[in-house]
C-alpha cells in the first residue's frame, strides 16, 4: 500500500513547485528593489553629509525600526489568528506602559521587572477583552469587531487621560542612559540603551517564535491562522486560541511601548503616532508574517530616519508622511507585502 502512490507523481506536483519558486523569486526581487533603493539613498547620504552623520542616522533608524517591528508584531499576531487589525493596539500598549510606570512608582524594583509585570497584566487584560467584547461576535463580522476596537481606542485614550492626565511623563530606561554610556563606531554614538533595546527585541522575537513553534498553544495558533474550518475539525477550541493571540499581542505591545517610552515620553496619545509606523511595518511585512513584521519595522525605521534626516523640506514632524507614503507604495506595488503569503482580494 502506498507504493502506487509513491510512484504516481501527478503533474500537479511540478506545477506547484514552479509556483512556489516563482513566488520566492518575486519576493526576492521585491526585497532587492527595496534594498537597492535604500543603498542608493545611503550612498547619496554619505556623499552629502559624511559617513559619521550617516552612521548615526543608520543606528537611530535601526533602533527605532526594531521597536516599530515589535509594535507591528502585536498587530500581526491578532491579524493572523482573526483576520482583524486591532485598532486599539496602540492605546492598549499605552495603558500597559502607564501600568509599568505606576508599578515602579508604588514599589521600588528593577525597571525590567516592572515591565514584565505590566506585560503579564496586559496579557490577562487582552484575554479578558477578547472573551467579553470580541468572542460574542461572529468572527466573519469584521465590521462589528473593527467598531469594537475603535470604541476601545477612544475609551482607552480617554481613560488614560482621566487617570494620569495629559502631562508627559518620562519613563526610566532599563539600561544605563547617561551621555557616557555608549560605544563609538567611526564617530557615531551607539548607546547602551539602543543596544540593550535591540537585544531585548530580538530576544522577545526568538521567545515568540519558540512559543509559536514549540508549544501546543502555538501549534493551535498556527492552525487557526491557516484555516479556521479545518482547525475546528482538529478539535481546536477556536475561541481559546484567539484569546491566546489577544493576550500574546497585548503583552508584546506593552513590551514595545515600554521600550519606546524612554526615548520619547509617556502621554495618552504617545502610541498613536507609533501605530502609523507599525501599520507601515506590518503592511510592508505582509501582515501575516512574524519575521516580515520585524523586517518591515527595520525598513520603516531606516527609511523614516534617513528621509527625514536628509531630504530638505521634510522635517522630523513629517516622519508620519514617510510612513504613510510607504504604506501607499507597498499597497500599490505589492499589496501582499514583501513577506506575506496571503493573497489579497482585489475587486
Amino acid at each position, binding site marked *: 500500500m502506498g507504493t502506487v502512490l509513491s510512484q504516481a507523481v501527478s503533474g500537479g506536483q511540478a506545477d506547484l513547485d514552479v509556483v512556489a519558486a516563482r513566488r520566492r523569486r518575486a519576493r526576492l526581487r521585491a526585497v532587492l528593489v527595496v534594498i537597492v533603493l535604500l543603498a542608493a539613498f545611503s550612498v547619496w547620504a554619505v556623499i552629502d553629509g559624511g559617513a559619521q552623520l550617516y552612521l548615526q542616522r543608520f543606528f537611530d533608524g535601526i533602533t527605532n525600526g526594531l521597536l516599530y517591528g515589535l509594535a507591528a508584531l502585536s498587530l500581526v499576531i491578532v491579524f493572523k489568528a482573526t483576520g482583524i487589525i486591532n485598532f486599539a493596539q496602540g492605546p492598549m500598549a499605552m495603558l500597559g506602559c502607564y501600568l509599568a510606570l505606576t508599578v515602579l512608582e508604588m514599589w521600588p524594583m528593577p525597571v525590567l521587572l516592572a515591565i514584565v509585570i505590566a506585560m503579564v497584566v496586559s496579557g490577562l487584560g487582552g484575554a479578558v477583552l477578547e472573551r467579553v467584547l470580541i468572542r460574542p461576535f461572529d468572527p466573519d463580522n469584521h465590521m*462589528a469587531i*473593527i*467598531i469594537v476596537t475603535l*470604541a476601545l481606542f477612544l*475609551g482607552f485614550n480617554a481613560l488614560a487621560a*482621566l487617570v494620569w492626565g495629559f502631562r508627559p511623563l518620562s519613563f526610566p530606561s532599563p539600561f544605563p542612559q547617561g551621555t557616557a554610556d555608549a560605544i563609538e563606531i567611526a564617530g557615531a554614538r551607539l548607546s547602551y540603551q539602543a543596544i540593550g533595546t535591540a537585544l531585548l527585541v530580538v530576544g522577545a522575537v526568538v521567545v515568540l517564535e519558540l512559543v509559536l513553534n514549540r508549544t501546543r498553544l502555538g501549534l493551535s495558533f498556527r492552525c487557526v491562522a491557516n484555516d479556521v474550518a479545518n482547525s475546528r475539525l482538529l478539535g481546536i477550541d477556536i475561541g481559546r486560541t484567539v484569546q491566546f493571540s489577544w493576550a500574546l499581542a497585548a503583552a508584546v505591545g506593552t513590551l514595545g511601548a515600554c521600550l519606546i517610552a524612554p526615548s520619547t515620553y509617556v502621554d495618552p496619545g504617545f502610541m498613536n503616532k507609533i501605530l502609523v509606523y507599525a501599520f507601515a511595518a506590518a*503592511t510592508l511585512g505582509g501582515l501575516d508574517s512574524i519575521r516580515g513584521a520585524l523586517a518591515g519595522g527595520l525598513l520603516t525605521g531606516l527609511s523614516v530616519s534617513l528621509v527625514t534626516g536628509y531630504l530638505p523640506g521634510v522635517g522630523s514632524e513629517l516622519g*508620519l508622511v514617510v510612513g504613510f507614503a510607504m504604506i501607499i507604495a507597498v*499597497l500599490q506595488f505589492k499589496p501582499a507585502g514583501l513577506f506575506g503569503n496571503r493573497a*489579497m482580494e482585489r475587486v
Partner: protein
Amino acid sequence: MPLRIERGSRRHRLLRLALAGGAAVLLLGLPHLLGTVSQVDTLSQIAAYSVAILGLIILMGYCGQISLAHSAFIGLGGYTTVILVADHDWPYLATIPVSIVICLAVGALIGIPALRIRGLYLAAVTLAVAALFPALVIRFEELTGGTSGKFAREAMQAPEWFFVNPYTRVGPSIVRFYVIAAVAVLVFLVARSILRSRIGRSMVALREAPLSAAASGVQVARVKIFAFAISGAFGGVAGSLLAIQLPQASDTRYTLDLSIFLLVALVAGGSGTMLGAIPGAIIFVTLRTFVSDWAAALPGFQGSDGGQIVGIISCLLLLAIVFLMPTGVAGGLQKAGRRLVQFTDPVPAGWRRFQLSASSQPTPSADAGGSQTASSPQPENSGAPTKG
C-alpha cells in the same frame, strides 16, 4: 395590524408631503423657539455634522468601505473657508464650492488605493491620513497659522432683505443656522438622488457581493472612487459649514479622535439609511457639548475632565449599540415605524402576462409585496417585470 400604504398612491404622496412640510416648519421654527445664542449654535452644529455623517453613510453604509479620514476632509473644508475669507476676503458661501472641488479631488486620491485593497488595509490607510492631517497643518504654518490656528475676523452677515432681524442678540446665530440648514438640506437632496441613481445601486451591489457586482458590469473602480470623492466632498461641505458657524480652524480641531467620534455617531445613528445622519449628528453634538459640560460639573472632576468622560461614555455607547442595536437609532425607528405604517409596492400593471403558469409560480400579490417591504424595500420588485 400596521396601516398599509401603497407606494406612489395618493395617500403615500400626501404623507410624504406632510412629512416634508413638518420638517420644513420644524427647521424654520426651531431656532425661534430656542432662546439663547448657544442653543441656536448647537442646532447649527447638528446640521453641519449631519452633512459630514451623511458622507460617511454613503461610503460605509452604502458602499461598505471604512474610512477614518473624515476628520481630514472636515479640516480641509474648514481651512479652505477660513483661509479664503480671512486672507482673500471671499464671501463665506462662495467658499463652499471651492471646498467641494478640493475635497472631491483629495477623496478620489484616497479612493485610488481602495481599488487594490479592501476593508482593513483601507482603514489603516485612512487612519494614517487622519493622523497626518494635523502634522501637515503644522508643517505648512504660513498658510494655516500652524499651532496658533487661523481665524476669520468677520462672521457671516445676512443681506439686508433677509427676513431675520440681525440686530437682536440671537439674530446673527439664527441667520447662520438658516444658511447652514439650507445647505444641509440641499446636500441631503443631492445625496438622495445619487443613492437612487444607477451609481447608488452599484454601490450597494458592491457592498453586498463585490464579485457578482463586477461580473454584472458594475465598474468597480469608478464606483469606489466616486464614493470616496463624494464622501470627501460632503466632509468638506461640513467643514465649511462649521467654519461658517464658528470661523476658526486649528490643528487640534481635526484629529483622528474626531473621525472616531463621527464613527460613533454613524453607528449610533444608523448607517443603513440616509436619515441616520440626523440622530447621529444629534448624538454627536450632545455628547461633545452637553454631556461634556455635565461631566465636568460632576463632583470629583475638573473642567478639563469633561472630554475624557465623553470619550469613555462614547466608547461604552458604541459598544452598547454594536451589541444591542446594530442598526442604530434610525434602524430602530424604522422598525418601530413599520409597526405603524407599512409601504407596499404597487402591483405592476399587466403583470399577469409574465406569469409562467398559474399555479406553480409565486405571484406578486399584495401580500408578498408587503412581506418584502418588511425586510427591505426593493424597488427592483416593481421595475423588473415591466422591463421584459
